[in-house]
């Protein structure tokens, strides 16, 4: 593979621009669905784009007490992590641009960059709301990155591979894993929602308690980058779950149908529940989710062995 091709895939397709675009579309679908569930009309289709462009064009205020370098670097790092992760997943149902044995682990680490950066960004400022938000973000990281990982391990163990493209292919050839591993699917979906801090797991940015959590002090570009980062993660997360549990992604139509289907379910969950307190969030996972997911993993390993 030559350098030009690498650059192209990194900057335009499937990474970079294309991913940004699809991230915005997915965000719009999500917001629109939630609005519809709430009996509202909801935003127009270009809303996320307008939001992001507007934020980019706004003044960026850097609070005096923060470490300037970190303050500027963290949003970039978060977005970069998310974009890089896109190279290893079967976006649009195409084969991942890059693939090597064990890329599943790398991808998951890259996806965690986002939460880490947000936590750090909150801890970097001296605003009280940001600090509380940072602690909550990191707490949530420990309770929801783990289950997401565990839930994705299920299909990996069954197929005997740690390579996303292989699992994807395998998933397409066998019975959908959602049927054989329903718990894993639910945990993966809930884990994804927790990861993205969507309601009801939005305690880290609970508007009514701590304003906007870790990002309270961010304005303009920094905020825009974090938002895009989140959108990109949403797409990648949905892609991963769809590829693993919904019978793999082999072509663009499948990709669209499956990820959008998942999004509808997620939007429904978002509008159905009241926000969980951070202790409830953690408790729910470690008391219920973790045990179930581990039990399922154990069964899978025993059955295979």
């Amino acid at each position, binding site marked *: 593979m030559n350098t030009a091709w690498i650059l192209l895939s990194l900057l335009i397709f499937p990474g970079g621009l294309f991913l940004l675009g699809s991230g915005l579309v997915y965000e719009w679908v999500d*917001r629109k669905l939630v*609005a519809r569930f*709430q*009996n*509202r*009309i*909801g*935003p*127009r289709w*270009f*809303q996320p*784009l*307008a*939001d*992001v*462009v*507007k934020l980019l*064009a*706004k*003044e*960026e*205020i850097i609070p005096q007490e923060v470490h300037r370098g970190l303050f500027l670097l963290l949003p970039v790092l978060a977005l970069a992590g998310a974009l890089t992760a896109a190279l290893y997943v079967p976006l649009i149902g195409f084969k991942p641009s890059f693939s090597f044995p064990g890329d599943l682990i790398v991808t998951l680490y890259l996806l965690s960059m986002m939460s880490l950066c947000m936590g750090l960004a909150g801890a970097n400022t001296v605003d009280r*709301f940001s600090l509380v938000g940072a602690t909550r973000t990191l707490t949530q990281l420990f309770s929801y990155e783990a289950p997401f990982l565990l839930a994705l391990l299920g299909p990996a163990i069954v197929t005997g591979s740690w390579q996303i493209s292989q699992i994807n292919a395998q998933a397409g050839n066998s019975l959908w894993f959602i049927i054989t591993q329903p718990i894993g699917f639910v945990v993966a979906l809930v884990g994804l929602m927790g990861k993205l801090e969507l309601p009801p797991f939005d305690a880290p940015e609970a*508007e*009514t308690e701590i*304003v*906007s959590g870790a*990002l*309270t*002090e*961010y*304005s*303009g570009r920094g*905020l825009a980058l974090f938002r895009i980062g989140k959108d990109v993660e949403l797409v990648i997360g949905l892609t991963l779950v769809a590829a693993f549990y919904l019978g793999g992604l082999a072509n663009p139509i499948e990709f669209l149908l499956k990820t959008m289907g998942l999004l509808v379910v997620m939007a429904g969950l978002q509008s159905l529940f009241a926000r969980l307190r951070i202790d409830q969030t953690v408790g729910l996972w470690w008391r219920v989710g973790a045990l179930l997911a581990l039990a399922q993993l154990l069964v899978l390993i025993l059955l295979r062995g």
Partner: protein
Amino acid sequence: MNEVKLENPWQQALDRVRSWARINSPWAIHFNSGSCNGCDIEILATLTPRYDVERFGIKLQGSPRHADVLICTGPVTLQARDRLVRIYNQMPEPKFVIAVGSCGLSGGAFQGCYNVVGSIADVIPVDVYVPGCPPRPEAIIYGVVQLLKSLKGETPDPQANAAGAG
């Protein structure tokens, strides 16, 4: 937005994109500087299904750092004045202010009161006034629309806006 006229067509295009985005994504922050609640409840009502301002991309934000439009209600009381100024200063440029309700316009019934500084315009520059005691949610939305209209064209002038011209 007192921006310099740009000669370069590329810059002109960029500028158009920028103002398009601004017009379509006004995030608001709400501050009550001493009102009776009537206006505040009506502002909140604009978020709800019957009025649903998210249609226009208007979102109520919690942090002043994220907001473009400060929607302010009530006469400014002595205690709220500093807060109001602080919130205004915390907002990143470009920023706009909408004064909602009769009290915000002129101090209303509370003019001259010992604990009241006066209208919102006495404390921070205001772009759009929405009269009423309290204004209906429709009127508040109309006020925001007037602001957006003025962004499309010439420099917003508080007086022209107050006259509903925009």
